[in-house]
């Protein structure tokens, strides 16, 4: 992250506030439908599978595999100096999460690589990142 330039941060609303508050506690939590058990993401008021409004927050293991990724080499935002790698991680619970990779320069990874969550604090919002399993971050 670049010093001095604030990250874009999530504008919390009445649906998403608990999701982001959990991240400030370094917990990745998803809504699990109280009726059918479906784990849904992004955050929303209604279960898209059974249309129940009832849900509970359930914590993710933070473990998953890389479903896709991009290495951003053309900088477009002052808070994000290029290059940096953004992963789309398919988590054990089902949802896919976008977050940056933290790995040593030249570390091998690709679609299917196993990764685990870690946390970084920022002024307005703690955010998850991922490290490659079995490698020093």
């Amino acid at each position: 992250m670049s010093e001095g330039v604030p990250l874009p941060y999530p504008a919390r609303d009445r649906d998403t506030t608990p999701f982001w508050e959990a991240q400030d506690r370094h917990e990745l939590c998803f809504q699990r439908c109280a009726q059918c058990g479906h784990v849904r993401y992004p955050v929303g008021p209604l279960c898209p599978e059974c249309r129940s409004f009832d849900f509970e927050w359930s914590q993710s293991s933070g473990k998953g595999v890389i479903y896709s990724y991009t290495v951003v080499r053309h900088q477009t935002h002052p808070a994000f100096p290029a290059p940096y790698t953004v992963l789309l991680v398919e988590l054990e619970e089902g949802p896919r999460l976008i977050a940056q990779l933290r790995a040593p320069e030249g570390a091998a990874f690709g679609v299917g690589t196993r990764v685990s969550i870690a946390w970084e604090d920022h002024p307005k919002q703690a955010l998850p990142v991922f490290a490659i399993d079995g490698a020093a971050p």
Partner: protein
Amino acid sequence: MSIRNRAAIAGVGQTEFSKDSGRSTLRMALEAILEALDDAGLRPEDVDSIVKMSANDDIYEIDLLRNLNLRNLRYFNEVPHGGGAACGTIASAVAAVTSGMADVVVTFRSLNERSERRFGETTVGGGVGHWRQYYFPHGLVTPAQWVAIHGQRYLHAYGATTEDLGRVSVLLRKHAATNPHAMMYARPITLEDHQNSRWIAEPLRLLDCCLDTDGACAVIVTSAEKAKTLKGVPAYITAATQGTGSRAEMMTSYQRADLGRLEESEAAARELWRVAEMRPEDMDVIQIYDPFTPMVLLQLEAYGFAKPGGAPALFRDGSLELGGRWPMNTHGGHLGDGYLHGFSHIVEGVRQLRGTAVNQVINPKTCLVTSGVGVPTSAIVLSKEAS
């Protein structure tokens, strides 16, 4: 009752495309609309409807009403979701015309997308809402970066390479090179040029990305019956539809089952071929929405021109060249002609069927035009004859 061939595009208009138009989007819209009306043999007094794209636009219906001194507008409507709306404006116009709610519909797109407001620009500071709150804080902030995630998955799923992406770009620049209207006129590229262009967001290079363009296009829709009586040679609207997919967001939709496919385009294709009573094999020329090269491959598969993973072969065997089975983006598309949010593809489709295109295909009778991808989308089939 089917809408099949009951409405037609009676006129088209288009300004020059450039990096700096030197005038307002309103001025360019008016120029394109007047040209389209003149092309059709209609006057502003004949217009009773406007259907426009709603995203990134500050031209309101009343601005056109006031400047053109239009009579009462019986029907006006706006179609959301960015470039997915282009053919959607035609679909809405067809609904209005075939139901009797409107007689002459103006649709248009006018952008100073290079000199004033670039779509890839991101805002700095402040909170980010809606679906973007899950992506912006992690540095995924532009359309190229969102699409790169889909592109990488496609390459992985089918063993395709960035050279397969490059061949899309080479074809578009080849068609633009012989189109004097195109921003990339007389500037063809080789596959080597593509591979040597700088990375934007892997697997996308600079030459995988569309241009930034100032310009405007306009299209006039009326009933097939009326179109036959007008000066402009009609292009009959054989089918027009919109389409959506599961777990939809704008260009991300990362929760859906398979990111190596385009659900919205598949949905639009099913409805389009049903209404048209045609198949991909029946198309003589195709205009495919081309913001980034992977999205061209995914659409060719979604609309049935190739099986999943089969689109790269169409670029290797010449199928999409001017003399091929399905000449594609004959004006050079968004990577070669200019980026008009899908509207220049409609104009080019009409010109091909009229026989007045710069890179004219021999006597085409049918044309597919598709609109924005990874968003709620739309598409039309145009025909030379209303049979």
